[in-house]
């Protein structure tokens, strides 16, 4: 094996190990955290960063061919879908939890109608 092969091997190992450790953190956090938004955040981290790192490692290991392009498309698709689903969970939690202010501070970015003063409760118009 030439030196380039070794560098590639080390890079692949580093990416995969880092991705796997983030998956481990995700599973640990999902069972450990008590509050919904914390769990949502750690799950989204695993679904974006963990999967992204693992797939980048696999892409490096695979070299330049069609499979790498497909893996890149998978990464793009997952990075589109996963954060949006977490965003929807967070929004639903915000519109249904009446005591959300006990858990976190809400910053109002854009004032909307009447509900904005109460932290966008009710219809969730924030």
């Amino acid at each position, binding site marked *: 094996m030439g030196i380039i092969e070794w560098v590639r091997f080390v890079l692949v190992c580093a990416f995969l190990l880092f991705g796997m450790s983030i998956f481990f953190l995700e599973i640990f956090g999902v069972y450990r955290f008590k509050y919904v938004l914390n769990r949502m955040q750690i799950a989204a981290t695993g679904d974006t960063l963990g999967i992204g790192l693992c797939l980048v490692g696999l892409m490096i290991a695979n070299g330049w061919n069609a499979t790498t392009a497909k893996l890149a498309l998978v990464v793009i*698709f997952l990075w*589109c*879908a996963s954060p949006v689903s977490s*965003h929807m969970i967070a*929004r*639903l939690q915000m*519109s249904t939890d009446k005591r959300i202010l006990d858990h976190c501070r809400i910053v109002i970015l854009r004032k909307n109608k009447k509900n904005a003063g109460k932290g966008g409760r009710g219809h*969730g118009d924030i």
Partner: protein
Amino acid sequence: MSRIRKQSEYEKTFAYRFFRWMGGEKDAFVGNMEMRPQKEYVEEEATIEERMRDRRQAMEEVYDSGHNRELRFFNWLYRCFSIIFCIAIVAMLVLTVSYLPSVGGEDKPTNNQVSETYITDGLKDTGAVNIVTGMILSYRAFDTFGETNVLFIATCCVMIMLMVDEDKIRENKDSNDRMFEPKNDVILQVVAKLLVPMVFLFGIYIILNGHLSPGGGFSGGAMIGAGMILYVAAFGFDRMEKFFNEKVYKCVKVTALICYGCIVTYYFLTGANGLACLIPLGVPGRILSGGITLPINIFVGSEVACTMYAFYALFRRGGL
């Protein structure tokens, strides 16, 4: 009521009693059997205390559990034997597994002429490069027809149980928990605008390319159904109804099923081997080839897509 006998005579006959029982006018058990609703079992505190005291007394005075060496020995032995028993059962099961014939061996009962014929003659008989799709859609087309019927009947059952009238859907539009549902989310809409066309395209590609590459009607249809669900979640039912409402759903579903049935019946009646079949097999590897595989893939795909979307819509608002 009897037309031949008088009413008083008729009331004594077996037929009178039987038809009364059939019509549900008289329950045979009422009056003849003791019927009393069961009381809920509630334990009083005094009984609980007594039970606890009895148990403690038994443990301390009868068995003398603090100083009883025999009892401790028995408990120890009990645990040991339970562990040994579990290990023995596990060992027996594992040993049995090791005696099973190995996977992929040559002299297996599953390795018979049927699979060999499928592999060697599959391309020639069905014209599909993807042998799996060619097999389930031409050799075993009636099996797949049954599966498609199962999907149809499943949606029919869910519709019978969950379908609500049109007026009630409008009435309940803004009531109770629907209020909390995030509507018209900008982020979701932008992402849906990007993803939905791609999901649809990929699903259609998988259906149309089912006889050439892995995939087929079931997986492609599931993908299209997921795309429709994403569209509804982002833009709401009002925009969905512009191109997919109950009428379209009924047409697509019934047409797909009927066409599938007709094609399969025709194919099997004419010999099932492409003998005198009107549908040509074509050149293997081209997009317009594979005989009946391609049209059946399309029908199965539309059926599965409709089923997926119908389940979502029925469970979410009780209507399509």
